[in-house]
């Protein structure tokens, strides 16, 4: 069987699209960004509790007092987690994605219902859209549309489209053929048959499709968060990658609150817009009136009353917005304003030293009058974004080995701003209580003790490749051990679990890492040098970083950090908790007077 190089064709296709149709992608990007920003501005503008009030009134109107009260409680909970802005960003993303999806899916579904050939062509396409793992098109999405909400939006649209199309088609096909025939027999035009008979009768099914679209859109936000979509997805992703259980639960719960709200509301809306649903509701209301118990719970404001309520709350929100005014950004010390409000886009993937240095520099750059924008991404998207010039700087390039693949691919589109830490090391690690294993060579023959498994991290990580291709072979371990790829957080959680139960475990790890401070661990010696030499951690910018930010480029080139400083900074951030990284870094800077001036000297 010859190798069919479909993959490389896809790559050339992406390259070609990128170089020839960039105007189109830019246009799409502009339109979508505009929609997203608009919706987000509206949803994010009012005070959290006022907005929760507005959403609660909608729930009251659609479902009743109990639903309204529960909605308010759930949304207030989200606010108390400090996730309100993220929740609104996610809600905006979901609403925009669902709207676009429906605008495309319903007509497609109608078309498919009326034309068997279209239906046949569409079916495999929808299968691909529904089952192709989202990461596969998320990365090209980043290449076309840069990081931010748009690749996530596109991925969401792609993923949530199939049920919209399918349910519309199904709904229309389900309409009794005799009814359609009756419509025709009385001289109805095909268009009117659709509008007067097929769509009204298909509406419950179509609304079930709408509900599915919205739910699937919401389920995509976490994945979208990896491409920089922001919102709850980013919070979940960041929490999970930093083994921040509490933060993960909170942001996960916020997603659940949104999901339940949207699910119940679209369900109720479906009953409200479909004629048969309206009838059923009228009957329920009649029987409810008959049994008067707890009637106030079932009281629902009429549409007019609900509208008035929403408008009043919105006006209050607007008024508060006006009176509050002002900008609370801290003033930049005179004479130190080198940035004059210039935006710097800092990207990091959730490795501890990356988090530490990025937030350190965010504080320092703010002090120097820049407006640093910090975003968490996966390494792949981050390097892509840097190469595309959609990101300015990141601090955590492990060179020459770990991130070799990215430098090989994008090296000529990036600028290396030099090493700020080194040498690092990669290693396999066992807890100290595992006796008799001190070096990689000692692992041979002990596979059974560890269940034949080495707990790895993300399969995309460079060290995973080195481990599989080189280290295991060198020490003759490749038949005996299987490297389980998971994620850094899973690896750390597994290490944690094993240490607590004193079970033997061997994991991939690297120095510097705070795990060495938390647990009593042994780095396995590498007498054959299979891991390669220690690496240096570099800061890497986009190609013309030095031209765009000459001062910052110089500061970063001169940036050095000792293991002691880095460890204490990481510890500070680790103890500060998720969502407080910036404040923790600020505290650390305050405790190290003069450090900022050393990092970013101005004047003189």
């Amino acid at each position, binding site marked *: 069987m010859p190798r069919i190089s479909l993959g490389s064709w896809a790559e050339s296709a992406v390259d070609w699209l990128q170089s020839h149709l960039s105007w189109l992608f830019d246009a799409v990007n502009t339109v979508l960004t505009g929609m997203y920003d608009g919706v987000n501005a509206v949803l994010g503008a009012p005070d959290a509790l006022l907005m929760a009030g507005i959403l609660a009134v909608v729930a009251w109107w659609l479902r009743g007092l109990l639903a309204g009260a529960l909605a308010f409680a759930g949304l207030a909970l989200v606010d108390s987690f400090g996730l309100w802005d993220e929740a609104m960003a996610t809600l905006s993303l979901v609403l925009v994605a669902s709207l676009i999806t429906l605008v495309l899916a319903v007509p497609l579904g109608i078309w498919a219902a009326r034309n068997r050939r279209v239906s046949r062509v569409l079916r495999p396409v929808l299968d691909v859209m529904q089952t192709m793992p989202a990461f596969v098109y998320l990365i090209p999405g980043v290449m076309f549309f840069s990081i931010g909400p748009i690749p996530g939006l596109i991925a969401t649209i792609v993923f949530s489209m199939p049920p919209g199309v399918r349910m519309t088609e199904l709904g229309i096909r389900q309409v009794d053929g005799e009814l359609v025939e*009756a419509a025709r*027999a009385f*001289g109805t*035009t095909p268009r009117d048959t659709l509008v007067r008979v097929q769509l*009204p009768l298909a509406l419950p099914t179509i609304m079930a499709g709408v509900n599915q679209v919205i739910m699937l859109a919401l389920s995509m936000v976490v994945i979208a968060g990896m491409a920089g979509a922001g919102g709850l997805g980013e919070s979940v992703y960041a929490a999970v990658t930093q083994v921040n259980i509490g933060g993960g639960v909170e942001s996960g719960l916020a997603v659940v609150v949104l999901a339940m709200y949207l699910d119940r509301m679209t369900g109720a809306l479906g009953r409200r817009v479909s004629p048969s649903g309206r009838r059923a509701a009228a009957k329920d209301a009649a029987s409810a009136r008959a049994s008067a118990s707890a009637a106030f719970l079932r009281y629902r404001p009429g549409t007019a009353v609900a509208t008035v309520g929403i408008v009043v709350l919105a006006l209050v929100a607007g008024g508060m917005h006006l009176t509050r005014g002002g900008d609370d950004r801290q003033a930049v010390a005179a004479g130190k304003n080198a940035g004059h409000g210039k935006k710097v886009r800092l990207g990091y993937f959730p490795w501890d030293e990356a988090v530490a240095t990025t937030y350190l520099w965010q504080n320092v750059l703010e002090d120097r009058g820049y407006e640093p924008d910090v975003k968490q991404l996966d390494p792949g998207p981050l390097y892509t974004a840097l190469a595309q010039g959609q990101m300015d700087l990141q601090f955590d390039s492990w060179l020459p080995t770990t991130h070799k693949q990215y430098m090989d691919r994008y090296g000529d589109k990036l600028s290396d701003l030099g090493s700020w830490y080194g040498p690092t090391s990669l290693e396999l690690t066992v807890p100290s209580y595992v006796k008799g294993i001190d070096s990689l060579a000692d692992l041979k023959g002990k596979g059974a003790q560890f269940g034949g498994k080495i707990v790895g991290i993300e399969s995309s990580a460079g060290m995973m490749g080195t481990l599989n291709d080189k280290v295991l072979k060198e020490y003759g371990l490749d038949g005996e051990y299987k490297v389980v790829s998971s994620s850094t957080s899973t690896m750390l959680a597994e290490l944690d679990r094993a240490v607590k139960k004193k079970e033997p475990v061997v994991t991939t790890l690297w120095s510097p890492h705070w795990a060495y401070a938390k647990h009593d661990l042994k780095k396995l010696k590498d007498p054959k040098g299979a891991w390669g030499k220690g690496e240096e951690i570099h800061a890497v910018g986009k190609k013309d970083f030095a031209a765009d930010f000459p001062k910052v480029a110089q500061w970063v080139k001169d940036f050095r950090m000792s293991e002691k400083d880095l460890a204490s900074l990481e510890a500070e951030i680790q103890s500060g908790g998720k969502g407080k990284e910036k404040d923790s870094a600020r505290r650390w800077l305050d405790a190290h007077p003069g450090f900022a001036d050393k990092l970013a000297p101005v004047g003189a």
Partner: protein
Amino acid sequence: MSRLKAEHLYKVFGRRPEAAVRRLADGADRDELRADGTTAAVIDASFEVEAGQIFVVMGLSGSGKSTLLRMLNGLLDPTAGRVLYDGRDLTALSPRELRDVRSRNISMVFQHFALFPHRSVLENAAYGLEVRGVPRAEREERAAEALELAGLKGWEKSWPDELSGGMQQRVGLARALATDADLLLMDESFSALDPLIRRDMQDQLLDLQKRLKKTIVFITHDLNEAMRLGDRIAVMRDGRIVQNGTAEDILVRPANDYVASFIQDVDRSRVLTAGSIMTGSAAPAAGLPDDATTVSADTPVAELFSPFARSGEPVAVTGEDGELTGVVTRDGLLAALGDQPQVAQGAAPRATDPEPEVTAHA
């Protein structure tokens, strides 16, 4: 001129239908075509329906009767042949013209009622007028009148699923009547109803027909229903019309064994009339008592039972002016009811003549 005329209608489903029509016209039968994957639903159907007449098409399921009906209003496009409505060829109309004919001249009543569940009874009845663009007030008034005709006054605001089957079909009937279409196509319209209701509906249809004088093509698989309603009856089998005549023609002179076997279970006493079983007036007066019961020629035979039960004397059949036209004797009555019908010699079996002359014009 007849109101509705079907000329050599064919409907073939499947590939290369025109070729199939040529083969059928050359004498191929349905089974030969089925082997090639084409289905001949209707084969060479011709008939005429006079204004004000109820024309019943009777056949078992699969005989092609519903397909035939749907070609009359263009819901199905005939593979060959023409449909003439008031002399206008419906098969030659553009889709727009055809829709116009459907909304003004031809309406339809369906087997399973086909009411729109998302519309009230009144909105259902007004549907045809709504499609035609009649203003709301006028169409609701006319729909309400049609509902009253159908015996549903007071149910306008109800929803279809709140009504019984019979009432739902009355809505279907009202919907068809509301457009003032002259031609009503009724597709097994009473078959889904239980027998008592069905009988009620038949009575009501006959009653309405007396007043409204619509032209009706009525499809059924129930021979008793056909006999009861039909001014003329066409019997279909395997896509062909095998006999076309009055109820009496079919009962007394079945065209072939198929029709004959069909009519075995018919209550002959309700279909045969005094006129059809009387002996001629050549030698009647003899033996006829002076106080003999007199009946007219179209009296159903069933109504002769009681006079015979009383006296056993012959019954006189008189014409419109009271003149004697014939006599029914007790023996004659019993013979007529007991006899199995004889296949009429005039109608040749299909095997020898692919185009039997079944279009006995009324």
